[in-house]
């Protein structure tokens, strides 16, 4: 018994010694748990879905059971079906419109806010303001969106305020309009633009800006030539963080957009929820792949024409 235990101990210590000395083994030990998890529960599902969308995974009966078989003859059936169905092009245009509007809207609001926070507040106030910005995020996203829905109700605050100001005569319902969707989206995605921009602007050396003034630059010129270029990595990061999820957003369109808005995220969601069986799966996968493809193209164009320095944190 004792000899056996000794053997195990010496084996373990020899193993530990090897690991300590072998750099490659250490690397593998550190990386493999995470990489294997990602491979199995992210990359593999993605590939399976891709195969399914090209009709390359088929279900066949072998004896009494069904098995999935890889077919090496891809076809575009599901993509053709997806692109030729009547709502698709409207959906895609609507998604691009929502996502672009949200990105530009959050950017126009975030930059002055980040500028103010970084340059006009002392450290204590900065922390307090960051606390205020984060706090609403403890309220569930769906509840926040629902809370906005009630503001837009004909008897809600927005309508009554507009009436009191004399802008509208009677109560108006904003629910179901594009404006409602866009306002709610800008509201919901603001923080994803604000934080990366703030992170970058906060680190800008203020002496650079003062130097520009000393050298005779106008405030406008300083902004365009000094501050904005320095803030660019944050702006790019924020734009990606807003644009990509905003394009697939479907909860906001469902809750405040009524039946009229039907962006691509809702299309994918409905495909999986409402259409059962392999048809729905394959069509949904095709839609999902088109969405990813559009994002890859948009990101590429953005990197190409705006820049590719990204600072996330």
């Amino acid at each position: 018994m004792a000899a056996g235990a000794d053997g195990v101990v010496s084996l373990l210590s020899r193993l530990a010694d090897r690991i300590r000395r072998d750099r490659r083994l250490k690397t593998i030990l550190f990386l493999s748990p995470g990489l294997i998890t990602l491979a199995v529960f992210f990359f593999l599902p993605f590939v399976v879905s891709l195969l399914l969308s090209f009709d390359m995974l088929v279900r066949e009966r072998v004896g009494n059971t069904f098995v999935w078989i890889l077919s090496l003859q891809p076809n575009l059936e599901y993509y053709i079906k997806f692109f030729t169905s009547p709502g698709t092009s409207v959906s895609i245009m609507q998604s691009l419109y929502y996502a672009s509007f949200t990105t530009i809207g959050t950017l126009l609001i975030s930059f002055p806010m980040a500028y103010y926070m970084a340059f006009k507040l002392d450290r204590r106030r900065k922390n307090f303001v960051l606390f205020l910005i984060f706090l609403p995020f403890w309220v569930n996203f769906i509840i926040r969106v629902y809370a906005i829905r009630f503001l837009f109700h004909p008897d809600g605050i927005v309508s009554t305020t507009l009436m009191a100001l004399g802008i509208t005569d009677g109560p108006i319902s904003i629910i179901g309009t594009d404006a409602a969707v866009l306002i709610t989206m800008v509201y919901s995605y603001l923080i994803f633009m604000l934080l990366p921009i703030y992170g970058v602007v906060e680190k800008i050396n203020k002496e650079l800006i003062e130097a520009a003034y000393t050298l005779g630059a106008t405030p406008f010129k300083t902004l365009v030539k000094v501050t904005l270029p320095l803030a660019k990595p944050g702006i790019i990061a924020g734009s990606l963080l807003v644009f990509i999820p905003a394009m697939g957003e479907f909860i906001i369109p469902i809750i405040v957009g009524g039946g009229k808005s039907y962006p691509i995220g809702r299309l994918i969601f409905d495909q999986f929820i409402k259409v059962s069986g392999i048809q729905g799966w394959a069509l949904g996968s095709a839609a999902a792949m088109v969405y990813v493809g559009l994002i890859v193209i948009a990101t590429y164009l953005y990197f190409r024409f705006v820049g590719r320095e990204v600072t996330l944190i």
Partner: protein
Amino acid sequence: MKVVDTLLKIFFWTVMVLIYVPIAVMVAFSFNASRSKVVFEGFSLENYISLFSNERVWGSFYNSIWTALIVVVVSLILGILMAYGVTRYRPRGSTILDSLIMVPIIIPEIVEAVTLALFLSIVGIPLSPFTIIIGHVAFDAPLAYLILKARFQGWNREYEEAAMTLGADEIRTFVKVTIPLMMPAVLAAAFLTFIWSYDDFIKTFFTRPTGFDTLPVYIWTRVARGRVELDINALSTIIVLVAMIFTYLRMKLEEKQSTI
């Protein structure tokens, strides 16, 4: 310049107020005596009373918390290991590896959710709380990695080298020196991964077993049936209050630490 500064200030605080309008209205209506969500008809604690007797709310709230906590622990472990491995050992192709790890952050959540659900169904893994957790980890581990990697890159190795020179072995150095140095980034990562997991609806919706609700899923089922009553407002009010207290205490703690 003065005018611009003043305008900037007004703009900033106007937006801050607007951010809080929906929250404030939600809190106010949690005390509404009638069931209306748009007309306030007097103060009452009725919604709070009905909230405390609603077992499904508390069940789903409990599910949200415990799954999120497991997600945070697993994601942090995987994220720390990956960030350490990539930045310290710089294996061949580490830039490609680095991009690969971050792909899940860039891919839209709805796509991740449906592909994972499809995969689980094809492979024949039955849905369970485990599938929810693993689905969250597939997003949160890269998120933790992203935050921790920035921290690893930012500090010099002198402290660790000093510990090693003084006779600590690598494991001891990792536990006694590296981990304490990482703490601020670990806390930031824990905070973000928790918030993400706790608030997640889409992935959970596709990977949950029937009958297992997290809070967002439970709220969604009520929204879908048009049955959002004010007890949800009451619950949100309590959550905001708890979050306020926690964040305040954390801020106080940080201030204390930074003055030492």
